[in-house]
């Protein structure tokens, strides 16, 4: 059998080597076609349909209705390929598109995401992956159900898994919509979403985990190639060395020097003062409410009348007319509109210092910053080690040994992208600070116009002080465009822009695939099969899973089409919730034999409740929904931000499990046997039988 395994591995290696070569040839071919004059729109279409078609092809080739293949890819995914698949599963639209942008905007503070989203794999490797693989069933609620006995822990597991995964999948589909509209100008956001949805569905719908795994490997290759090419190019341009990760230290020094210069530059100060004055004027108007509603209305009306009387140009009159027409009608509307004006205050400050650690106006502010940085790292790490769609992947390796190796490969492949993102942020920043800043408005690069047109919130460059020169303070840049616009910022051919968009699409689709499968499996396997109808046949279970997948996918697309404003918060919240809900129960389940049903049940509930309660106290959007009393500052515990609410939930979860377990009877002998069973990769005379073996579907 060992030779058979080797033969399968060689076959995969050969297939993916050819695939990678073929993909590179395809990109080169498109580059040549572009040189010969193929229009840009075509390149966008070709990238979109070629990659989605490819994923669909893999999905169709891997179609299956066998339960072992559908749920865990037949448990024969070699460690290195499972590593790549986990990499694609893990790296979402947020990692691919958003990460470098966050680092660009926040500097050192953003590195909390880099640390948290990689260091969490140490916890996966040391505490979970090998033991879950030995347990060897299908889902994470499966483990909770078997280890703690009974349906209540399983049911809480289902709720937590569905909640975390659903918010996360909505964000992915949103990302798909964003990228499709970028690839094909003229397609509406909603159509983009449903196009992408088709790509997700052919794959996971037909072949479950098997199809998703082999597609994710293919998607990893595309996304890593797409991420590296522009960064290497920028690195050669600015440092002369093609390995950006090694040399961007010197670029960071240059950026720091430019920041110093721009902080005191008189023209920059002039623009920042314009913002400060505007904000102050808006604040004064808000303060004078309700009286200012009438007086301000008179001001805009008078301006219109004056312009009309003076026979001013039509454009100016129209603008003044618009100001009158859109003038807020009620006090509440005025308050909202002027609050928006007052928000430009954020642009009146000096540029952030990229390398500065824990900035703050005094020691206290800096300490609060440090506390939140560490708390965020903690929540992201523990959350990583608790997200069901990632943990589920370690069920698919052939053995415990390969599960351990597979965590190494997972982190290695993730590391390749994550240690590049900070380099990209610094290089892109240097490019903007040294070439865009100080250039003339008459000669703005094409990409500025292109991206401003897509969405003004992504990029706006406006000459506020009317001097014809771009000041840094006049540039408002959204984090999401850093990666997507890098090829254009660096002056690369359009085919690379298409490649990067295809990479972002691969990242979003692969994560969405894994998440949808997690939700559908939790509902079909755990809720339907294990709790409602234990006699259901395999075919019936797989069919139900497929139907649920379709329903959940459409529901997620419908939510994403609403463009929910707080989607980013929801995603980060998923980490804190998963951390508090799953991590204590899973880890104690393996390492502490005394942990029992009631301890785990109440511990999971208490962890989730504490985390959610803190968010309701301190997160603006949830505060309005629940009508929270008191100001945010009053409600905060030790100045921790709501995104890191898990820092309270995780310890509460651990404590409640320990205390309640001691107060209630110890678990019975069968469960003691299960614990021994998962602790040793192979155990002579092991009497524990998983339900998988009992159903004769083992290997």
């Amino acid at each position, binding site marked *: 059998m060992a030779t058979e395994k080797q033969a399968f591995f060689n076959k995969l290696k050969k297939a993916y080597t050819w695939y990678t070569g073929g993909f590179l040839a395809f990109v080169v071919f498109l580059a040549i076609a572009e040189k010969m004059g193929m229009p840009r729109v075509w390149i966008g279409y070709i990238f979109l349909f070629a990659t989605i078609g490819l994923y669909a092809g893999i999905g169709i080739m891997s179609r299956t209705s066998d339960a072992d293949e559908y749920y865990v890819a037949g448990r024969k995914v070699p460690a290195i390929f499972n590593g790549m698949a986990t990499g694609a599963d893990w790296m979402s639209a947020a990692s691919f598109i958003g990460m470098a942008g966050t680092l660009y905007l926040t500097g*050192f503070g953003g590195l909390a995401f880099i640390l948290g989203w990689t*260091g969490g794999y140490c916890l996966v490797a040391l505490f979970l992956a090998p033991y879950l693989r030995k347990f060897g069933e299908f889902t994470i609620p499966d483990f909770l159900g078997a280890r703690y006995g009974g349906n209540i822990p399983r049911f809480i597991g289902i709720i937590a898994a569905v909640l975390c995964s659903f918010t996360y999948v909505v964000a992915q589909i949103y990302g798909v919509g964003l990228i499709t509209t970028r690839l094909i100008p003229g397609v509406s956001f909603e159509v983009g979403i449903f196009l992408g949805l088709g790509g997700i569905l052919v794959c996971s719908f037909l072949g479950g985990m098997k199809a998703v795994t082999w597609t994710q490997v293919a998607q990893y290759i595309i996304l890593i190639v797409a991420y590296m090419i522009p960064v290497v190019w920028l690195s050669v341009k600015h440092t002369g060395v093609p390995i950006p990760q090694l040399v961007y230290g010197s670029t*960071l020094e240059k950026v720091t020097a430019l920041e110093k210069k721009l902080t005191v530059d008189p023209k920059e100060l002039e623009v920042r003062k314009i913002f400060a004055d505007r904000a102050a004027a808006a604040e004064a108007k808000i303060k004078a409410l309700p009286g200012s509603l009438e007086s301000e209305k008179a001001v805009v009306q008078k301006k219109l009348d004056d312009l009309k009387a003076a026979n001013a140009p039509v454009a100016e009159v129209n603008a003044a007319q618009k100001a009158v027409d859109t003038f807020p009608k009620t006090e509440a509307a005025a308050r909202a509109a002027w609050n928006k004006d007052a928000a430009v205050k954020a642009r009146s400050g000096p540029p952030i210092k990229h*390398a500065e*650690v824990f900035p703050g106006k005094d020691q206290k502010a800096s300490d609060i910053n440090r506390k939140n940085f560490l708390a965020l790292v903690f929540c992201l790490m523990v959350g990583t080690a608790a997200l069901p769609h990632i943990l589920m992947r370690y069920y698919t390796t052939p053995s415990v*040994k390969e599960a351990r190796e597979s*965590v190494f490969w997972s982190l290695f492949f993730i590391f390749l992208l994550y*240690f590049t993102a900070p380099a990209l942020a610094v290089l892109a920043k240097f490019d903007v600070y040294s070439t865009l800043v100080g250039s003339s408005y008459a000669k703005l690069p094409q990409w500025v116009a292109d991206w401003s047109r897509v969405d003004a919130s992504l990029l706006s460059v406006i000459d506020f002080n009317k001097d014809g020169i771009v000041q840094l303070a006049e540039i408002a840049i959204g984090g999401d465009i850093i990666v997507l616009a890098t090829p254009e910022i660096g002056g690369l051919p359009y085919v690379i822009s298409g490649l990067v968009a295809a990479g972002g699409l691969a990242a979003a689709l692969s994560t969405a695939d894994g998440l949808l499968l997690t939700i559908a499996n939790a509902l079909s396997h755990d809720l339907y099969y294990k709790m409602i109808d234990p006699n259901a046949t395999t075919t019936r279970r797989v069919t139900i899973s497929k139907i649920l997948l379709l329903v959940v996918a459409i529901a997620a697309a419908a939510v994403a089409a609403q463009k929910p404003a707080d989607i980013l918060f929801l995603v980060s919240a998923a980490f804190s919730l998963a951390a508090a809900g799953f991590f204590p129960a899973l880890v104690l389940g393996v390492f502490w034999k005394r942990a029992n049903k009631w301890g785990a049940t109440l511990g999971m509930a208490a962890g989730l409740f504490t985390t959610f309660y803190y968010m309701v106290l301190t997160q603006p959007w949830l505060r309005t929904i629940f009508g929270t009393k008191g100001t945010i500052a009053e409600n905060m515990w030790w100045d921790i931000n709501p995104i890191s609410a898990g820092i309270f939930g995780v310890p509460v979860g651990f404590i409640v499990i320990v205390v309640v377990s001691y107060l209630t009877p110890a678990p019975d002998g069968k469960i003691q046997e299960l614990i021994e069973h998962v602790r040793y990769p*192979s155990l002579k005379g092991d009497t524990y039988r998983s339900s998988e073996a009992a159903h004769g579907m083992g290997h």
Partner: protein
Amino acid sequence: MEHITAKHKEYWSKNMRLTSILLFIWFVATFVMGYYAKELATINFFGWPLSFYMAAQGSLIIYVVIIWYYARAMGKLDEEYGVAESED
């Protein structure tokens, strides 16, 4: 449980010791480094402030090595204590 012998218990305690040591390294590379980031930032490391380098690259490399070492050491331990899976 009769099938758990003293040898098995020794395997498990060795596993726990290895896990604790690696977890300690993980903790230092993450939280001790993070706590003293301001102090470490004064050290220049090939152009990067040391704390920036660690958070962007150094600690990540430590994580990869931790997991690599754990997989390797546990593979050997499995063989040594006769709990390795048979090739099937």
